[in-house]
């Protein structure tokens, strides 16, 4: 097994979840409906749980403790895609990001339940139920608002067009793509993207939203190699504000 290839996969997955979990938690208390506020906040918390479980796997592979990895790295060490670090914007954008991201994440976990790296397969099986809920939440909202009023449709359409190049950045190929596939750890980003595209098309076909031809969209890459937008560092500052007051404190 190629450990570097495995670590690359685990870091990008966990970092995506940590950063999006933190971003989505920014809606806590200011969500559009009380019930939705609770649901969106709970899912944000779930995402932190997913990142923690994967940081734990990294720890078993010789990396630092999960808290160290989460709170004490500089922006250029994070391997999350740009999609998850963008500001929350208005709710239409946060929902569309949730839809594009969680459909991919659920399929990734589904694929990983068969991973040849058993500890990862176990984590995937454990959290698949949570991701089924996240997916249902995203699809239900997109179907509802994607068919509701002229305003809801045009807002979601604009968010979809804005988010799509970033969403395609989720599937930025790893330098270890062939090793990851041949070692049976994961079927690879291309296979994931194909399944994701199929699912996104299937859901959007039930709405008034139009999906662009993704072969004509230039993906936003860079996140997987530690190159980030200007939005990540302020997020990390805010996320680590309390822990840095006393890094040795016990919680």
């Amino acid at each position, binding site marked *: 097994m190629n450990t570097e290839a495995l670590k690359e996969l685990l870091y990008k997955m966990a970092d995506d979840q940590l950063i999006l979990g933190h971003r989505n938690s*920014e809606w806590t208390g*200011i969500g559009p*409906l*009380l*019930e*939705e506020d*609770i*649901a969106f906040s*709970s*899912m944000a*918390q779930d995402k932190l*749980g997913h990142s923690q479980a994967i940081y734990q796997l990294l720890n078993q592979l010789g990396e630092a403790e999960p808290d160290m990895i989460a709170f004490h790295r500089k922006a250029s060490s994070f391997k999350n895609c740009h999609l998850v670090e963008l*500001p929350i914007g208005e709710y239409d954008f946060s929902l569309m990001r949730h839809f594009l991201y969680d459909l991919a994440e659920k399929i990734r976990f589904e694929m990983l339940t068969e991973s040849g790296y058993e500890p990862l397969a176990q984590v995937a099986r*454990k*959290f*698949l*139920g*949570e991701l*089924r*809920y996240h997916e*249902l*939440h995203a699809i*239900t*909202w997109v179907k*509802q608002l994607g068919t509701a009023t002229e305003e809801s449709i045009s807002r979601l359409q604009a968010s979809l067009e804005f988010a799509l190049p970033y969403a395609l950045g989720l599937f930025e190929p790893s330098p270890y793509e062939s090793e990851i596939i041949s070692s049976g750890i994961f079927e690879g980003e291309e296979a994931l993207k194909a399944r994701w595209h199929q699912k996104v098309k299937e859901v959007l076909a039930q709405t008034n939203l139009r999906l662009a031809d993704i072969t004509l969209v230039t993906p936003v890459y860079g996140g997987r190699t530690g190159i980030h937008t200007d939005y990540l560092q302020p997020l990390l500052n*805010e996320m680590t504000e309390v822990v840095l007051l006393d890094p040795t404190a016990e919680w």
Partner: protein
Amino acid sequence: MNSPLVSLDPRITRLGVYEVVPETLIPKSPMDQFETYEAFFQKKENAAYEHTGPVHAPHPELAYLFAKEQYSRRGNTCTGICVIRTIDIQTSATGDNDKNIYDQVIPRGEIDLSGPVRSFDIFHMKKRGGHHQHVGRVEARSHEEALYKAKQAFSDLSPVVNVWVAASEDIRFSTPEEKSFWDTLPLKKYRDAIVYKVQDRIERFKQEKASH
């Protein structure tokens, strides 16, 4: 207009919202809540679904999503939920604790038998102030006929103070695959304040403060 609100909470500052200070009386806005749905949850496989409270939603699927986090984000176990639009539930009169409301179920003239035979779900409240529990299904042509069928089928159980009747097609139940939503629920103890054992640390802090 003045500058946007600045808050100690940076998220609020980032919203870029303005404080609106009316110069005179303005009419109060009407309630902008969605309609309500009643949510029920099932604690264990084969246990009865039990009423747990309402959610507001514009659509049954959204009500289902909301009920899941509103009412089953904490607790040891859950194997399913269901939601029913409140106005799709028909309720019997409510009796006293020592009487069985089924004894007072008297036909008000003719029962409506014009519709097709459908399935109805029956819920019982056993004590005033208690939660309604799902007891089973009957086949009937109307809610009213379903209540009479329920009387035959379920009234030999312990006394019931109130009955709810809902057409099965108006209920969104968890599917078998969705039972996995709650696989990790026992691991979410951090959502309960009671798991944070801080009393000794608070005492220590107080003592330290007192000794200074």
